[in-house]
């Protein structure tokens, strides 16, 4: 309590400090009754009202007792109730469209229910306006400027948090980063004035590690809860506990799908408010027989729609980048034929997947092409997307949905410790969600590329939540830091399998983040400060011992962003040649470092870095974001007194030290070559047969390698590998490489031989 009062005072003081000097810096203007009702304000002197220094329509509002009409009037006023600046023309234009949103009709109903309960479950389909509007409704009711307690709205994706925050800032006619801000990993755009904060769910979780009661917030809105991301699941379990301790904390769980009852029961039978989306009926079609090739069937269906269905855009769901690009190409070629042969309309095909650069992602919002000539058949737009178009993204104009019934899903196998992204059949809920995309503008059609019987029999009811499909090492570390003692009875909505939990505990134990009793160690506490996987965090923390923390910091940042290598289809050879310029014979980690150093060198030389990156087939976007990540991590290191040191580059140990430091975190990701002149490696302890990913720079076949990730496609690959010496393993991770703990096999015998050798050498030294 004392703590929260302190933050409260600080934030109100800060807020006033930034206001215009001509405005009065008073604390006590216009008091209302609610100040006494709020236990937090009791700590403040006098009336404790730290409202605005200007006259605002909000002054008359009674906190947590407002009506929709009051709010509408405040929104209609000439001056912005939050900043006192006159409203712009744009504001009124947006306000008009906002008033047409489906949620608007139920604003009063929402407020009534919000006042009556601590936890509220809100269901509204994508496009109902819930993500942008509900937080604003809460803003006008919670009046955070009075209490200093912010409103948080979580999003599963970084991009969504950023774009929605921008949108809401526009809607409220304020600058992004002031009254409305966002906070995502490695980027925080909030200020002392911030009242409403969009953030990723993971970011709120990180904040909770230092503020177990989430005392900065008066209301927490969990958006897109139906996606059941790992962080949202953990947040729900935490908030369930916090809600009992903090009766003043309001919680809204927002979901876009129909299975909201599960949320209700989980949250002590919380009341539910449903807002119908702006949906039209969607007619569903199935194939009469199962399809041999779903990609081909998908392309055929798109063409069929194009040939015979009336105007309207098409959304096709496929699983990954390659497949999508292939389908786009095939559709384009076929439609060219159709135009030649039968005077079909033009079609604009746009791919959409996560790794697509943002400006290309934006193209999906382009208008459909016009008819080729006057009076010709109308053109249409076809978007070929992964399941990001399933719930998160709203594309207007889609009338036809083609659903082959697959998506790529992450699955973690705790026995082999492999996290893989596999093409799997979707769930019934997912299929319904996809179909719903067709009915956004007018009645639509959904073509499912499987039989109705398969829909009923083969598809599971609900997609497995992420927590059941992930490596939990990071989660367990976070939970420990969050003060969760009993991981067995932690009240998650869908608790993970015991084996998965055990693996996570053991991994953390080997990393010395947890002791043998499962208690957080000092190292573990420190590792949890970094928004990184525990292994990487441990590597970073121990890097000063190897005299290369600067370099490991750079490598860490480079591993935290998408691949920096660009390899366009039409210039692969040149791209590979360019990469070879940076290549270090000992491995990919060092090659990454070389590229980064070259990039920084070009930057310092004052070159046009963008051009330089383009010439060298490097991604400027990812390199500069790695640079940003590096700065953030460096700050964390500095606050925790982790030294930043380097071995002089002339020293021949320069690269050796780095390779050794890699092992301090990644000693559990090591593979040994099966036999000499074999290309196959076997991972240590998990005994998985793998090959080195062909994208590597490593040419000579080393016997032992450390790898950054395990990729399971049609073959099992390890990607980003670096050559190491096995003696280092015994030295750096003696517990993990205790020979007795190994199963019989080549690796065990290799290690036994090695231990003997080391022992003999030491004996020799001792004897001399």
């Amino acid at each position, binding site marked *: 309590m004392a703590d929260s009062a302190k933050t409260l005072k600080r934030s109100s003081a800060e807020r006033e400090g930034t206001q215009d000097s001509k405005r009065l810096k008073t604390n006590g203007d216009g008091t209302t009754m609610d100040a006494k009702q709020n236990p937090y304000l009791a700590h403040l002197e006098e009336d404790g009202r730290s409202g605005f220094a200007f006259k605002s329509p909000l002054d008359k509002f009674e906190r947590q007792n407002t009506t929709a009409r009051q709010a509408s009037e405040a929104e209609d006023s000439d001056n912005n109730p939050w900043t006192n600046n006159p409203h712009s023309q744009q504001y009124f234009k947006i306000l008009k469209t906002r008033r047409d949103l489906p949620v608007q009709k139920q604003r009063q109903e929402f407020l009534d229910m919000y006042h009556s309960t601590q936890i509220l479950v809100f269901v509204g389909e994508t496009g109902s306006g819930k993500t942008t509007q509900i937080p604003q409704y809460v803003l006008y009711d919670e009046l955070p400027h009075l209490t200093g307690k912010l409103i948080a709205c979580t999003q599963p994706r970084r991009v969504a948090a950023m774009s929605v925050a921008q949108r809401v800032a526009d809607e409220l006619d304020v600058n992004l980063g002031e009254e409305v801000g966002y906070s995502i990993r490695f980027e925080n755009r909030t200020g002392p004035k911030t009242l409403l904060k969009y953030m990723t769910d993971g970011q709120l979780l990180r904040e909770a590690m230092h503020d177990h009661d989430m005392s900065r917030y008066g209301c927490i809105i969990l958006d897109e809860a139906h996606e059941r991301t790992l962080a949202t699941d953990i947040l729900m379990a935490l908030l369930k506990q916090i809600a009992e301790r903090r009766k003043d904390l309001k919680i809204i769980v927002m979901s876009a799908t129909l299975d909201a009852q599960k949320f209700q029961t989980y949250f002590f039978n919380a009341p539910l408010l449903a807002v119908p*989306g702006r949906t039209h009926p969607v007619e569903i079609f199935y194939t009469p027989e199962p399809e*041999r090739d779903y990609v081909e069937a998908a392309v055929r269906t798109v*063409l069929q729609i194009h040939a015979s269905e009336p105007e309207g855009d098409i959304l096709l769901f496929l699983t990954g980048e390659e497949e999508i690009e292939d389908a786009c190409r095939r559709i384009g070629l*076929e439609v060219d034929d159709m135009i030649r042969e039968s005077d079909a309309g033009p079609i604009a095909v746009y791919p959409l997947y996560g790794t697509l650069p943002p400006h290309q992602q934006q193209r999906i919002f382009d208008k459909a092409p016009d008819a080729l000539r006057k009076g010709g058949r109308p053109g249409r737009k076809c978007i070929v997307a992964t399941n990001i178009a399933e719930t998160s993204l709203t594309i207007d104009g889609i009338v036809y949905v083609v659903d082959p019934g697959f998506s790529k899903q992450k*699955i973690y196998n705790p026995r082999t410790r492999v996290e893989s992204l596999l093409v799997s059949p979707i769930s019934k809920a997912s299929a319904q969600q996809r179909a719903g995309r067709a009915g956004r503008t007018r009645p639509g059609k959904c073509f499912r590329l499987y039989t109705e019987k398969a829909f009923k029999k083969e598809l599971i009811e609900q997609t497995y939540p992420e927590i059941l499909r992930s490596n939990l090492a990071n989660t367990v570390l976070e939970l420990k830091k969050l003060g969760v003692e009993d*991981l067995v009875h932690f009240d*998650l909505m869908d608790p*993970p399998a*015991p084996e998965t939990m055990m693996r996570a505990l053991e991994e953390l134990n080997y990393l010395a983040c947890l002791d043998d009793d499962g208690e957080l160690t000092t190292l573990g506490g420190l590792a949890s400060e970094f928004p990184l996987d525990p292994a990487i965090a441990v590597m970073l923390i121990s890097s000063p011992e190897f005299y290369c923390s600067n370099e490991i910091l750079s490598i860490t940042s480079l591993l935290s962003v998408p691949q920096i290598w660009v390899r366009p289809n039409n210039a692969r050879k040149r791209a590979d040649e360019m990469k070879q310029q940076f290549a270090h014979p000992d491995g990919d980690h060092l090659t990454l470092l070389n590229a980064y150093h070259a990039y920084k060198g070009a930057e310092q030389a004052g070159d046009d870095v963008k051009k330089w990156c383009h010439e060298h087939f490097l991604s400027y976007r990812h390199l500069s974001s790695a640079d940003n990540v590096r700065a953030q991590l460096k700050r964390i290191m500095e606050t925790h007194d982790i030294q930043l040191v380097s071995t002089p580059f002339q020293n021949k140990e320069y690269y050796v030290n780095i390779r050794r430091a890699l092992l301090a975190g990644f000693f559990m990701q090591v593979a040994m070559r099966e036999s000499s002149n074999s290309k196959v490696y076997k991972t240590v302890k998990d005994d998985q047969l793998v090959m080195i990913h062909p994208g590597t720079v490593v040419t000579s076949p080393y016997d032992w390698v450390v790898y950054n990730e395990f990729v399971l496609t049609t*073959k099992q690959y390890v990607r980003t590998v670096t050559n190491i010496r096995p003696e280092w393993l015994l030295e750096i991770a003696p517990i993990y490489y205790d020979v007795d703990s190994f199963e019989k096999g080549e690796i065990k015998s290799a290690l036994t031989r090695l231990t003997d050798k080391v022992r003999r050498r030491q004996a020799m030294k001792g004897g001399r």
Partner: protein
Amino acid sequence: MAAPKENTRSNNDHDEDYDDIPLQHQRYFGAGLHKRPISFVSASTGSSQLQSVNNTTPKLSPPQDISDIYLNLVLPKTPQPSPPPPSESQPDAPPCPICNLPLQAPSSPTHPPSQCPTPHTQSLAHQLSLPHSHPPSSLDRTRMGLSYLSSHGWDPDARRGLGAAEQGIAFPVKARLKDDNRGVGMPVSVSKKGDEKGRGREKEKLLDAGKVRKLVKEEGRRRERVWEELFGDGRVEKYLGKGAGGGGS
């Protein structure tokens, strides 16, 4: 997409991860896919239209096909015990507390008394109703993770999950590798099993010396025939010049 670039890919045939299209699949025109429409069928009545948010209550629909009906008969829907079949409703036989069947095996048309001399406890119904005793879990007892979980009250042999009521899943979600484009509901057996069968049949053939001789003779005859077809025509021989056919014999 341009053809001349293709020669650069010869040395990285093995990398599936790059989205190169194999040469034989490169198409400069459509492959005529638009001429092969799929005859979609409308969803069966009742579920053809997507329900809107308003009617969230799941409707209990009557069983749709025969396997549903069968499962409805077999699986107990409600915990209440089903009334015993009329033929066995004899008031004097007390029901067994485990399997709910009368203790004395009554005579019934399906089980003539002469054929069930076994005591009731050994009857199939009774045995199936007995509570299962499971073998202990195969987890390695020395694992640190296990000792943590059991120190917080989780029993590895109880077949329970984690969570407030230990309601979580007992085993990790399984991953299944999919490396083809087969659609949902397409049976796995169609192409692969067929291949295996074909190969299997070839292997089954046992050849003795006579058969081998026969095969060789046939092979020779076939080769001759091909030869004749290729070079039998005088014009070809003339074109190829003298001695062109010599290499073959």
